[in-house]
Each structure stands twice: as structure tokens, then as C-alpha cells.
């Protein structure tokens, strides 16, 4: 049992173990994990290196907006190499038996990356420095400078073998396309379907629910969120709503044409014969409802890019969706009420909330009171480069 996994918690199947490899090391995860959640369950935050300075990087999100935890994936033993995919987001890739994952953009190992010398030399490699130099001698551009720049750039390893998978594409006409199956999208689809409208509901996640998946404590019409979700899903299916999960809307074109990319096999342990890997849908909808929800914004501060610094919403998702505590001790920095509930949930799960730092002048008194009961003061500590081990808070008021 992995150290940071909470038994029985989340929407993962605790009875089904899935084994995978990351950078040559074998790990156990659970069915329903992503590569990120499975690694975090083992306390692994370091998953990549930054583009130019090779600074250590860990997941910032628990979803498709992930900028840091980019890995190369393949299907493992017996793999010809044609199914190798670079720049896969560890937060999106569902665990499958035998998955082989590797970190990217490092010279040497992920923990000891010689490329990090760039970080030490960062003043010399400031933004756009290459426009200001590499011009002399002239012949050196073709022979030396450009090849070096090209080798230093790029993130993922390029694929080198032909992809044996097939991809399909189809048209779809629908009265109403709802993009996003969080609470808003689900309600919109439900109301429309009850009124007899032909509805197509799409979501990029493997299951419907959106933000509800990370917030089981919420109540809708007196029902617990996950009970409401299951009842809604059943009714939508009964009403004949076309439910498409693992489906990303990729573009909104003239006159309600929307492109969809549906993933079909990336999460499967074994590939079915002749199954397309993905299906591209060109949807023409009479009406479109956009219900993609909100993106949480990271805060900018010195060291905000270190592994272990992530969105509070992501920490909440790892806890409630995957039953994973992202650490033993946490500091929450926020300018919003919702982070307090994340803090309380984490505290209840056994993570010590060292401090809640609120940038607002007057946070809600009831939240502050509860926070005082559940969190303690912050202390100064020296930061470690590979994992945020502490923080220094600016003294204010």
C-alpha cells in the first residue's frame, strides 16, 4: 500500500492493482489512477524538467491543463516503438497494465540532470538572448550554434517508428451539444433531454461529473454529490442522451461546427482488434452550451515552480478522486474561500496544515475560526530545490 494513499477513499478501485514503470522503476497503482495520482500516492512529485533551465518540475494540476508533468509513454513489453507518445500529460494518462513511462528533457537522470547547469547559468540565458548573439563568426551558425540550440530545445523524444494504430472520423448532427459534464453541463443536458431535445454531452474526463468528482461533500437538492451524479447519469442514459467521455472539444467553428477528439483505447490494458485509437467527430449542432467550467489560476512567487507547489483544487482532486494525500505537511496560499475547504479536507485526511496564507484583508470570520482550530502557524525553513520543504512568509500588518 502506497504511503500517501487513503484506503477506501476516492473513485479508484482499491481492489484492483495496476502495475506500471516510470523511469525504469516499477510502481503499483489502482484502476482509475492517472500516472500522476499513482506516482503521488508513492510520494513522487518530481516528474519532469523545465524547457530551458532544466529546473525540477512536478504536477501543478490534476487535469488536462497540466504544464509540467509531461512524460513519454508506450505500451511496454512487445512494443515496436510505434506507440510511443511524447509530451503526454501524466495527469491525463490513465493507468493501464504494463504502461511504460519516462521523464523528458534531462541529461542523465531526472534527479540528477546535467542540463540543470543552465539554471545555474540562467543570467546568461535570459529571455531572447539568442537574438542578441550567435552571429559571429557567420559560418558558425549553420555548423555549431543552431545544431546546439536545436538539441537543447524541444521537450519530448521524437517518435521514430510508424504508428500502427488507426484513427477514424465521423460526422454527428445533434440538436444540442453540451461541452462539459460538470454540474452545469449535466443540468443543461438533463433539462433539455427532459424537454425532448436530442442532446450530446461531452467531457474530456473518463467519467461525468467535472468538479463534483472533487467535492463529494457538496449537496444538490439534499442529495450527496456523488449520489446525485449517479442518479443523473442514469436518467441521462435513460433519456437517450449521447454521453461521450474521454472526449475533448478541440475547436468551435462557423455556425456551430465543433470538432471533438474521442480517445478510445489509451486507457485499455490490451488493444481490441482493429479498434481505432481515437475518433475525430465533426459535430454540427443546432445549439451549443459551453460548460467547461473554470480554470484555477496559480499564484506567482519566488519558487512557485518547484515540485510540491500545486493548485489547491488539484490537491483537493487528488484527495477526493484518487484518495491520495499530496504530502504530510501543507501550506495553503489563497485569495478565495474555497481553499479553506480544501485545507479542512486535507487536515481531516491526515495532512498537517502548517498555515493558511490569505492575501485578502478580511477573510470570512467563520472560516478563520475553523482554520485556527485545524491549522497551526507557519515556520521558516530552508527550501530544498527538488521539493518545496517550507516557506518564508512576508510579514504583513
Amino acid at each position, binding site marked *: 500500500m502506497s504511503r500517501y494513499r487513503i484506503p477506501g477513499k476516492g473513485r479508484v478501485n482499491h481492489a484492483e492493482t495496476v502495475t506500471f514503470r516510470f523511469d525504469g522503476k516499477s510502481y503499483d497503482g489502482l484502476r482509475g489512477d492517472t500516472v500522476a495520482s499513482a506516482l503521488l500516492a508513492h510520494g513522487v512529485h518530481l516528474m519532469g524538467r523545465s524547457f530551458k533551465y532544466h529546473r525540477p518540475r512536478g504536477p501543478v494540476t490534476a487535469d488536462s491543463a497540466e504544464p509540467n508533468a509531461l512524460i513519454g509513454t508506450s505500451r511496454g513489453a512487445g512494443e515496436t516503438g510505434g506507440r510511443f507518445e511524447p509530451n503526454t500529460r501524466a495527469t491525463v494518462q490513465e493507468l493501464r497494465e504494463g504502461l511504460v513511462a519516462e521523464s523528458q528533457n534531462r541529461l542523465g537522470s531526472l534527479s540528477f540532470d546535467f542540463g540543470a547547469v543552465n539554471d545555474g547559468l540562467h543570467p546568461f540565458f535570459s529571455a531572447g538572448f539568442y537574438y542578441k548573439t550567435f552571429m559571429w563568426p557567420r559560418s558558425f551558425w549553420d555548423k555549431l550554434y543552431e545544431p546546439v540550440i536545436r538539441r537543447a530545445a524541444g521537450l519530448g523524444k521524437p517518435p521514430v517508428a510508424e504508428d500502427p494504430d488507426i484513427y477514424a472520423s465521423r460526422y454527428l448532427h445533434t440538436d444540442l451539444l453540451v461541452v462539459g459534464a460538470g454540474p452545469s453541463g449535466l443540468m443543461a443536458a438533463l433539462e433539455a433531454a427532459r424537454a425532448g431535445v436530442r442532446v450530446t454531452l461531452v467531457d474530456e474526463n473518463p467519467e461525468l461529473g467535472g468538479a463534483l468528482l472533487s467535492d463529494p461533500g457538496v449537496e444538490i437538492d439534499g442529495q450527496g454529490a456523488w449520489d446525485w451524479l449517479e442518479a443523473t447519469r442514469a436518467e441521462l442514459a435513460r433519456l437517450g442522451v449521447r454521453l461521450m467521455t474521454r472526449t475533448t472539444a478541440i475547436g468551435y*467553428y*462557423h*455556425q456551430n*461546427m465543433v470538432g471533438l477528439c474521442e480517445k478510445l483505447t489509451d486507457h485499455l490494458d490490451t488493444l481490441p482488434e482493429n479498434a481505432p485509437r481515437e475518433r475525430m467527430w*465533426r459535430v*454540427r449542432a443546432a445549439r451549443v452550451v459551453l460548460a467547461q467550467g473554470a480554470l484555477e489560476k496559480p499564484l506567482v512567487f519566488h519558487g512557485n515552480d518547484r515540485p510540491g507547489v500545486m493548485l489547491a483544487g488539484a490537491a483537493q482532486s487528488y484527495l477526493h478522486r484518487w484518495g491520495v494525500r499530496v504530502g504530510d505537511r501543507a501550506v495553503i496560499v489563497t485569495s478565495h474561500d474555497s481553499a479553506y475547504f480544501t485545507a479542512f479536507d486535507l487536515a481531516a485526511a491526515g495532512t498537517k496544515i502548517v498555515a493558511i496564507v490569505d492575501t485578502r484583508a478580511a477573510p470570512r470570520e467563520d472560516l478563520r475560526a475553523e482554520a485556527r482550530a485545524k491549522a497551526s502557524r507557519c515556520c521558516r525553513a530552508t527550501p530544498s530545490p527538488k521539493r518545496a520543504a517550507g516557506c518564508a512568509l512576508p510579514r504583513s500588518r
Partner: protein
Amino acid sequence: MLLIHCPYCDETLPELEFAYAGEAHIARPLDPSAMSDEEWRDFLFIRSNPKGPHFERWRHIHGCARFFNAVRDTVSDRFLMTYKAGEPRPDLSKLEAA
């Protein structure tokens, strides 16, 4: 992909069924040899290319195969109307955006 209403088929269909056929209401001269070089150049090559409502032709190549006219706004790409070949150019001030 645009949706275009063919005035002959009286159906609104995807752009892939049609071929764009350039600016509309450019009358082919009845007596080309009587035209000056400037007039002939204007007929062949000079186009209004407006940023706004544009009178243009389309051909329903994978349908009825007939040419028809359209007024489309080239900034929003919205069709204001389509009308059969031979019908007069509509008055823009009377058109409402589709």
C-alpha cells in the same frame, strides 16, 4: 465549415458541397473586342474584395450543380442571403444579418 443555403435545392448544406465562384454581378462583356485594355483588365482581374458585405457566387457542385449568388459579410463570414442567378443584386440597406 460554412453552412450555405442553396436557393435552388432550398436546403442549407455544408460548404464541402459547394465551390466558391468569385465575385458576383461581373457581367461578361457582349463584345470583348470593342473593350479597351482597361475595361478588359477590370473584367478579368479587378475585384472589390471588401471587408464587409460581399456579393459573390457559389456553385452547388455536389448537389444541383447550379450557380447562385450570395451576400456574405467577409468579417464575420455570415451569409446575409443567397439568391438565384439572374435575380437582381439586393439592396443592402434592406437586408438584415442572418
